[in-house]
C-alpha cells in the first residue's frame, strides 16, 4: 500500500486543539508521515507536546525548519547552527545569492518555489547533489496572489520545467497552518499534474520522494531521529 507524506505542516504552536485536529485529519486523509515546522525559538516542552500529539494520532513525525537568509554568510551561519537539530531544512529566500548557495549546499534539503514568484525565477543550475528538492506549496497557489492567477500558474509551470531539466526532484506539500488548508495526498498529486508533472512524477512527489528524503536524513543524523 502506498505511503503518503506531507512535508510542510505548520500547526500553531501553543494551540493543542488545532494540533489535535490537524493530526487526526492527516491520519484520516491517509498520510503516514508528516513534517512539522518548528522554529529555533520554540520551547522544548511545546515541541515535545506537539510531536506527541501527532505520534498519538498514529503518524510518523519529522521536524523541519524554514531558513530565510538575505545573503550567503547569513545562510551559511544558519545552516551551521540548525542542520543537526532538524530532520528537514528548507530554504525560502528571495535572495539570488542565497538561493545559488542553497542549491549547491548538501545541508539544504528543500528549496521553496515561492521565492521564484517574487524574483526573476529560481537561479537553478544542474542539481549537484541528490538531496536537491524543489517544493511546491499549496499555499503558494491558494494564497500568494502577487500575479493574476493564470500568470501565477504559468510561472510555476515554467519553474517546474526548469527544475526537471536540471534534475531536481519535486515535492508537493500543503503548507497548512490550519486544518482547512490541508489537502488529501492524491489531490495534491493532481495539482502537480496540472503544473506540469506527469502522473508518475506527481505520485512520487507526495510519496516515495519525501519519505526517502526523511529516511536518508534520519540515517545521517543518527539517533534520536533514526
Amino acid at each position, binding site marked *: 500500500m502506498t505511503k503518503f507524506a506531507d512535508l510542510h505542516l505548520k500547526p500553531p504552536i501553543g494551540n493543542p486543539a488545532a494540533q489535535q485536529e490537524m493530526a487526526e485529519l492527516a491520519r484520516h*486523509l491517509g498520510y503516514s508521515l508528516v513534517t512539522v515546522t518548528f522554529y529555533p525559538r520554540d520551547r522544548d516542552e511545546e515541541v515535545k507536546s506537539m510531536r506527541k500529539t501527532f505520534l498519538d494520532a498514529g503518524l510518523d513525525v519529522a521536524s523541519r525548519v524554514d531558513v530565510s537568509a538575505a545573503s550567503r554568510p547569513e545562510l551559511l551561519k544558519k545552516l551551521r547552527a540548525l542542520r543537526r537539530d532538524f530532520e528537514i531544512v528548507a530554504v525560502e529566500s528571495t535572495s539570488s545569492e542565497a538561493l545559488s548557495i542553497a542549491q549547491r549546499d548538501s545541508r539544504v534539503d528543500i528549496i521553496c518555489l515561492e521565492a521564484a514568484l517574487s524574483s526573476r525565477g529560481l537561479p537553478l543550475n544542474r542539481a549537484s547533489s541528490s538531496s536537491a528538492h524543489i517544493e511546491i506549496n*499549496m499555499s503558494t*497557489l*491558494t*494564497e500568494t496572489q502577487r500575479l493574476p492567477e493564470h500568470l501565477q500558474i504559468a510561472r510555476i509551470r515554467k519553474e517546474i520545467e526548469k527544475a526537471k531539466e536540471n534534475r531536481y526532484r519535486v515535492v508537493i506539500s500543503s503548507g497548512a497552518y490550519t*486544518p*482547512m*488548508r*490541508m*489537502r*488529501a495526498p*492524491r*489531490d*495534491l*498529486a*493532481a*495539482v502537480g*499534474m*496540472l503544473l506540469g508533472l506527469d*502522473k508518475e512524477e506527481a505520485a512520487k512527489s507526495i510519496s516515495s520522494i519525501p519519505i526517502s528524503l526523511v529516511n536518508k536524513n534520519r540515517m545521517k543524523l543518527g539517533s534520536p531521529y533514526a
Partner: protein
Amino acid sequence: MKRRSWRYLLVKIVANKALSKKAFSESLVSSVEHLFGHIGLAEISPQVVSYDQECSTALVKCSREGVQKLRATLALVTEIENSPAAAFVLRTSGTIRSLRRRP
C-alpha cells in the same frame, strides 16, 4: 456509439458554516469553469449526486478522463459562498454502490 464512463468521488467538505447541496454544486461548477473553461467543464461534467449535510460529505460524479482535473479543482477550493472551506476527496470508485458500501 461508445457509452461514456463515469467516476464517483466521495468528497468531504470542511467549512465554517453549514452548506447546502446547491451552494456546493454551484461552487464546484464555477471552480471547474474558472480553471478549465467551458470546454473543460463539458469534458469533466461534474455533478453532485448526493449531499449529506450531517456528515458534510458529497458524492460527486464526473467523467473518467476528468477525475484528475476534478481532484485538482477541489484541492484549489478555498471558499464556498464567501466562507472559508476546503474539500477533500476521500475515495473514488466506478460505482456509487461501492463508495457507499465501504466504511
